[in-house]
């Protein structure tokens, strides 16, 4: 059976396990219809021109894992940011692991989507926010249809969350191929600040396909720093759909570090619903083999006097392919905005490919919008300089690539995370240069 048909028929089974009389379920039922009509996107769709799901969809993914697996912390410690204290929301094959998690209800909710969906005390807030900013495209709809588990974070007003929150999804290979659809809802009220790190990690070579949706609501003067670590193994694919709604004077940033995985698609959407908003979208992609990473970003400027900053760096080796599609929409009333977009790429090998496309739709007449993309190779003169200092070719190239990507790292606000990313980069570049980059 094709994956699409399998998913549609699974929906009937899924309904046996959820409250079908809730308003949320009406949304699910609507969503499965959308998916049924549209199916998986093909390369004929403009937004998917350079990313094909065809090969991936031939895999016979299980939609519900039959058995549950447990993990010892020592087995997976390395995937955590473990040198500082953090909240943790951990899932194993889509199921919540209370053993590996550290959640809280003390003055804020850092807990589970299943709890938010099922407990009456969350009903009003869930109904106010759930699926309110997620696009109604086929993949987000597919996730909505099966929305049941994920992270639920609600930070009430005037709260500075002292510890970062880690959301980690492990897959253990308990099925020969597994599809996961986590659903996260994050609400940050007025004047509050939260830092979140998200990671998807497959622990075996069995194929995994994750289709994730995250909705983030940032109220007036709220601050959200979101970090995505995408360093999965080469049989794991990820379609990440993230939607961020910002109110006036809020500051939101998403850093995406893509170093691994078979196919990774990041649909990252920012909606500015207020004045004096600041949005930051940054990413470093370093991939090789036949890996594929696609960043499709949208910043929708709906109000005046706002800023957005996009800075994506890509390093592509061997037969790796990259896509950057950065869309900026400026509504007619959104005067005096400043939208900046940069996408710089290095192709290390002849067979590597990058497709980069800025897409600006500007309807206001008093705005600053700048964009630039570059594709190049490493600078020979710079390489020569490093070599004359006795540095071997491989290490010299690594230093230059590191320097190339550096300004994206500079804005990472958690020092231990920055250190970790540095190590991942050094690992990815295959060097040990005597100091932590």
């Amino acid at each position, binding site marked *: 059976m094709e994956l699409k048909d399998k998913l549609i028929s699974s929906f009937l089974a899924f309904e046996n396990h959820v409250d079908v009389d809730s308003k949320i379920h009406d949304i699910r039922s609507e969503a499965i219809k959308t998916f049924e009509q549209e199916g998986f996107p093909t390369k004929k769709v403009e937004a998917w021109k350079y990313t094909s799901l065809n090969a991936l969809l031939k895999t016979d993914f299980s939609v519900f894992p039959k058995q549950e697996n447990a993990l010892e912390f020592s087995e997976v410690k390395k995937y955590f940011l473990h040198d500082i204290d953090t909240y943790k929301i951990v899932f194993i094959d889509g199921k919540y692991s209370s053993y590996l998690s550290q959640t809280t209800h003390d003055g804020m909710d850092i807990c589970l989507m299943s709890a938010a969906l099922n407990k009456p005390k969350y009903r009003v807030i869930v109904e106010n926010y759930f699926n309110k900013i997620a696009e109604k495209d086929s993949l987000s709809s597919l996730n909505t249809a099966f929305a049941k588990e994920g992270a639920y974070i609600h930070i009430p007003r005037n709260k500075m969350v002292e510890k970062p929150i880690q959301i980690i999804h492990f897959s253990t290979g308990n099925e020969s191929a597994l599809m996961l659809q986590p659903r996260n809802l994050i609400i940050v009220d007025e004047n509050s600040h939260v830092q979140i790190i998200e990671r998807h990690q497959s622990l075996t070579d069995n194929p995994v396909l994750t289709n994730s949706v995250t909705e983030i609501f940032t109220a007036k003067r709220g601050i959200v720093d979101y970090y995505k670590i995408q360093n999965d193994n080469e049989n794991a694919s990820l379609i990440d759909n993230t939607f961020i709604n910002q109110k006036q004077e809020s500051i939101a940033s998403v850093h995406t570090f893509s170093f691994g995985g078979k196919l990774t698609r990041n649909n990252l959407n920012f909606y500015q619903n207020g004045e004096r908003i600041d949005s930051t979208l940054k990413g470093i992609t370093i991939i090789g083999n036949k890996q594929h990473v696609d960043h499709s970003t949208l910043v929708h400027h709906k109000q005046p006097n706002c800023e957005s900053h996009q800075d994506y760096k890509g390093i592509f080796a061997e037969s790796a392919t990259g896509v950057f599609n950065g869309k900026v929409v400026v509504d007619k009333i959104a005067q005096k905005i400043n939208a900046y977009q940069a996408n710089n790429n290095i192709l290390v090998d002849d067979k590597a490919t990058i497709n980069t496309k800025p897409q600006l739709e500007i309807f206001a007449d008093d705005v600053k919008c700048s964009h630039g993309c570059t594709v190049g190779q490493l*600078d*020979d*003169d*710079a390489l*020569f*300089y*490093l*070599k*004359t*200092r*006795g*540095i*071997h*070719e491989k*290490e*010299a190239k690594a*230093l*230059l690539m*590191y*320097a190339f990507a*550096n*300004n994206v*790292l*500079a804005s990472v606000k958690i020092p231990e995370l920055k250190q970790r990313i540095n190590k991942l980069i050094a690992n990815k570049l295959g060097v040990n*240069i*005597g*100091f932590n*980059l």
Partner: protein
Amino acid sequence: MLKIKDLHASVDDKSILKGINLEVNAGEVHAIMGPNGSGKSTLATVIAGKEDYEIERGEIEFEGEDLHELAPEERAHKGIFLSFQYPVEIPGVSVTNFMKTAINETRKAKGLEEMPANEMLKLIREKSELLEIDRKFLSRSLNEGFSGGEKKRNEIFQMAMLEPKLAILDETDSGLDIDALRIVANGVNKLKSKDNAVIVITHYQRLLDYIVPDFVHVLYNGKIVKSGTKELAHELEEKGYDWIKEEVLQ
């Protein structure tokens, strides 16, 4: 130490060096002067091993070993150092970390252990004092946002750290004010010994007041057309290069 015989080199089929002969021995300071485009910087980068240049003819030997087949980093490991006219900026890598990498890569090539951290710190302190470099400077990203003078001083700091046998200073004096020039020259002089040698490439005689050469060579149109002692540099300063060009024509 360095023996260059009838060296011809070209880039993109354009010949730039057209028969260079030069011998540099330990303990000596050589100055290479000449008008723009005469091939001075090319000679420096060819000795350091830049792959873009094709050696069409001739020999370069360093301590009896043919340099032809050696990569730039291998030449560095043997003790050849080039101070760049335009040093490269490396954002995110501090001067200190860069030096650690350079020194340990060289040690690795020689089969030595990495230099212990305390020894490294001591060396950095000692050499930065020699060049009157502030400690804060060492934690800045390599060459990023450095002034022209800071870049040059940093080049000589690297030279001090790496202790090469042969140092080639390519236009180290350009962009330096008189104080910086004095500090840089002072550093070079303190590093000079009977076991190492320096080649100073310069347009002007100014630097040679501070780093006094044993020999001065004039490079013109890819050849050394005149060699002499430091008095030759003074003569060039007074009379310019035209008389040399005329001499060559005759």
